[in-house]
């Protein structure tokens, strides 16, 4: 059994002129990004703007029509790249294996790659579950967990890999505001524990500004902005401002407060 090779705790990511179409629809129109090692890089954008497709290219689940993704200078398409760099992804749906228990889900990377004996795997799994506040939940099935707990199990599964690169796809979607804060804290905790490079795709503004070192805005398959969170907040582009500051009209909310609709039985 081989323990994971000791390597740099994080990697750089570069996206060069990435194009992708599904049938006749062009989803990514020449994306260029550079993400420094150890950063939490947040990609924001409206639904259907191509964020998740970009993320799936970065982890190598989709192949681009043209352009390339470089992990620490090496193409994601090159053979053996996954043996060389430890990468993990936390899916929007958590993507836990529903036929396995929480412990088996969290330890699957270690057991399938035969990195440690079962007792050691059980110890590591218990430690990682404790990090995400799920100690004692080892024997439960994913279907018995709430959405927030499933996301935290998925984060624990990513932690076990001791990743150099972690990708989060809409980590707070379908979660209540309190649980969204917990997941945001887990992302920050994961960075402080592993120093991994993190890429977070979200349209949750609170999460984005709470965790980002740098941010990008993607709209209709194109990057509109890349920079620091403060620059992002103060950007003049109306598409960015609309996205960041979109709220219900005050008159609508005040009308609701002053003129409640009478309850008719």
């Amino acid at each position, binding site marked *: 059994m081989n323990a994971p090779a000791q390597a740099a705790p994080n990697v750089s990511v570069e996206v060069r002129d990435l194009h992708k179409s599904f049938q006749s629809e062009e989803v990514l129109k020449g994306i260029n990004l550079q993400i420094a090692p150890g950063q939490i890089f947040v990609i924001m954008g409206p639904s259907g703007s191509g964020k998740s497709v970009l993320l799936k290219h970065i982890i190598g*689940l989709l192949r681009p029509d043209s352009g390339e993704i470089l992990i620490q200078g090496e193409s994601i398409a090159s053979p053996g790249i996954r043996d060389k760099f430890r990468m*993990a*992804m936390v*899916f929007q*749906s958590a*993507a836990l*294996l529903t036929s396995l228990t929480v412990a088996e889900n969290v330890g699957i*990377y270690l057991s*399938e790659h035969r990195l440690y004996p079962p007792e050691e795997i059980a110890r590591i799994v218990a430690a990682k579950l404790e990090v995400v506040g799920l100690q004692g939940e080892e024997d439960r099935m994913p279907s018995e967990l709430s959405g927030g707990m499933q996301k935290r199990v998925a984060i624990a*599964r990513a932690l076990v890999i001791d990743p150099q690169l972690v990708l989060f796809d809409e980590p707070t979607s379908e979660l209540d505001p309190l649980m969204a804060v917990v997941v945001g804290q887990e992302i920050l905790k994961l960075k402080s524990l592993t120093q991994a490079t993190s890429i977070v795709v979200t349209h949750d503004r609170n999460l984005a500004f709470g965790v980002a070192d740098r941010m990008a805005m993607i709209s209709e398959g194109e990057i509109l902005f890349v920079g620091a969170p403060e620059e992002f907040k103060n950007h003049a582009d109306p598409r960015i401002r609309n996205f960041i500051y979109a709220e219900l009209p005050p008159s609508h909310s005040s009308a609701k407060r002053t003129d409640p609709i009478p309850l008719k039985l």
Partner: protein
Amino acid sequence: MFQNIGEIMILFWRTLRAVPLAWHQRRKVFDQLFEIGNGSLMMVCILSLFIGGVLALQTGPELVKRGLSFVLGGMVGESICKELAPVLLAILIAGRSGSAMSAEIGSMRVYEEIDALRTMNIDPVAYLVLPRMLAIALALPTLVLFAIPVGWLGAAFISAINNQIAVGFNVFFQDLRDVVDAGDVANGVFKSFVFALAIGIISCHQGLITRGGPRGIGRSVTKAVVNSIVCILILDYFLTRVLIYVQK
């Protein structure tokens, strides 16, 4: 269709290449074996009992009319072990286990579980397809080995109790012993092994290419079962031709 056949061939090749990892996947193989083998055993026994019975009922009276009742055991016995047991059990297992395989893998595909495996550098072929292929390739021939004697018993029982046939157990099994040998049983077991590989690979492939939500999963299950049955019947003809030639 040709694209699907090509993909199935590639998946089969990748599964063969993953065979050295079989020992590591032994727990999943045992789980699947239990599901396919033990879970189907009772149904298989009932099915073969009645297949044997109905075969005796259809052929027995005609043979008796022609004064050929002494050949009933051999004829029915050979039909069961060379043809009916492997083909009908394969169809049963395609409906029962092939559908379960495609539904389970299809659901994992739709709900991104297979993508999650890939991101962890876990090969879905070794993790999902290999254990199912090994289990069905072991379970179906074993079930056929069970089904053959049960089918014989069913046929012998009906032959004995039916007034129009009235062939006793001794006569039935004496002829069966004279006609059927180990090669005939091996013939049926070999056929079922090939059918098992076909059901396994078609069902797993259909699961892996599932798209969409629950409707996509349902469509995959239907395709897996229908394609498996069509493949079993086509393969049966060619295998029979080859085995007749080999056994000469």
